[in-house]
């Protein structure tokens, strides 16, 4: 019988990880905040051109791991990261690596929209300008327009690009932040609960946007909404108490998870 044959490890990996090229590879990652052991021996493969969702209860380490991917934890003095994280085969904790360049390749969108207190145009133009992505003004303008279009915001703001970014509604601000993130043409976009401050309509817009963006980007999203993870992602990772409990195709995780802890969490049974 087929089931009796021991399948090689590669075949037991999630389908999406086998179908898409590998983008982020983490091996035996531990993260400490001083004495606190926030992430315990984590290994995961994150595919390109797909959305990967991290779910789990508060304090489970999902945001901590997300912030390790663009080395944002470097800014916390007591934080220590060990193990290995590679993007396209390159160790991102390599001493010779320029962190500023790394963060230009990895965009980030936060829980609360945080536009710069500048005009809508400037919010998007800032990144490409300081990284020298635009040769001239027309070039820059094109990048701003394309980014706003990709973020699904252009039609709503095209007549008031000189207005302040903070004058927009919450959902529009969040899409502005996404436009700002994609303006520097990153390879990876990290999103830390990007919809938790938004109403259902604005949330739906962002989810639609995430679905479009995944064609060209490797997207990693941390979310407290299980339904959102089920809707937008292809790969889901469940974290609990600093451990990566289960990784699998999203379709499998939400219909037939393997681990009891995953089952208990997604069905609302966690005590």
């Amino acid at each position: 019988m087929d089931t009796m044959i021991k399948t090689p490890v590669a075949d037991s990996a999630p389908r999406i990880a086998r179908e898409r090229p590998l983008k982020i590879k983490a091996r035996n990652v531990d993260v400490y905040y001083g004495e606190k052991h926030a992430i315990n021996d984590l290994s995961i493969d994150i595919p390109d051109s797909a959305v990967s969702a991290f779910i789990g209860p508060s304090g489970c380490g999902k945001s901590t791991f997300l912030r390790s991917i663009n080395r944002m934890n470097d800014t916390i003095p007591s934080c220590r990261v060990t193990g290995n994280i590679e993007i396209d085969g390159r160790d991102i904790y390599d001493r010779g690596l320029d962190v500023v360049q790394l963060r230009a390749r990895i965009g980030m969108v936060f829980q609360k929209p945080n536009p710069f207190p500048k005009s809508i145009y400037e919010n998007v133009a800032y990144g490409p300008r300081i990284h020298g992505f635009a040769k001239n003004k027309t070039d820059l303008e094109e990048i701003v327009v394309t980014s706003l279009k990709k973020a699904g915001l252009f039609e709503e703001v095209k007549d008031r690009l000189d207005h302040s970014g903070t004058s927009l509604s919450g959902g529009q601000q969040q899409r502005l932040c996404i436009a700002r993130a994609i303006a520097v043409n990153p390879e990876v976009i990290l999103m830390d609960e990007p919809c938790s401050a938004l109403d259902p309509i604005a949330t739906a817009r962002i989810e639609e946007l995430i679905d479009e963006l995944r064609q060209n980007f490797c997207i990693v999203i941390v979310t407290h909404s299980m339904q959102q993870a089920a809707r937008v992602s292809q790969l889901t990772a469940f974290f609990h108490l600093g451990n990566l409990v289960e990784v699998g195709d999203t379709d499998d995780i939400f219909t037939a998870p393997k681990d009891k802890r995953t089952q208990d969490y997604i069905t609302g049974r966690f005590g």
Partner: protein
Amino acid sequence: MSDHIVKAYDEDLANLKTMLAQMGGLAEDHLAKAIEALAKRDTKLADYVIGQDEKIDALELQLEERAILTIAKRQPMARDLREIMVAIRIASDLERIGDLAKNIAKRSHAISEALPRKLATGLTRMGRLSLEQLKDVLDAYTTTDDAKALEVWRNDGELDALYNSIFRELLTYMMEDPRMIGPCTHLLFGAKNFERIGDHATNIAENIHYLVSGRPMREERPKKDTTSTTAFDSLNER
């Protein structure tokens, strides 16, 4: 499995199970009575079964409503989601079993006088076997016993084999005496109904397996019903 943080959610799921148990009980009862009506030529009992069927239909509607409401309110995931989906599917199988039992009861009217008793014996044997399958699969559901469900699933072949032999037997009678064609046709439909009840029992077994394991049944279904070709063979032999 541990309880939900929201207690009302547990109650919602428990309610579905209770309603399904009620439906199962009724289907079992109606089938048993339909078989008895057939065996004993009891037209009163047959009428009782016919009159009771709408109870099952009403329960199915009620269960469906509750299930949809639960999906809308709780957005179930994983096993909870399977639990609800499976309840809806099993309810529809039970409703069909109720219909088939009712149909058998109706036919027992037509069969009651016209036929020598011994002809109906094979049919009641088939009925009892289908009733056993239904009982076993309902037990398997109540105890969420995957192994028992699998057993029911495998046993369906026996019912199919019995159907084949009854089919051939009835065909012979009809060929011998054209006056038997009418009543034998009723018997044939009755036999087909029992065979269909067996199929619904295997459906339920498949759903139990899905509920427990999260995966659909893999193997090919134990189909041994060959009657779709039998008629031609027999006619050609003449």
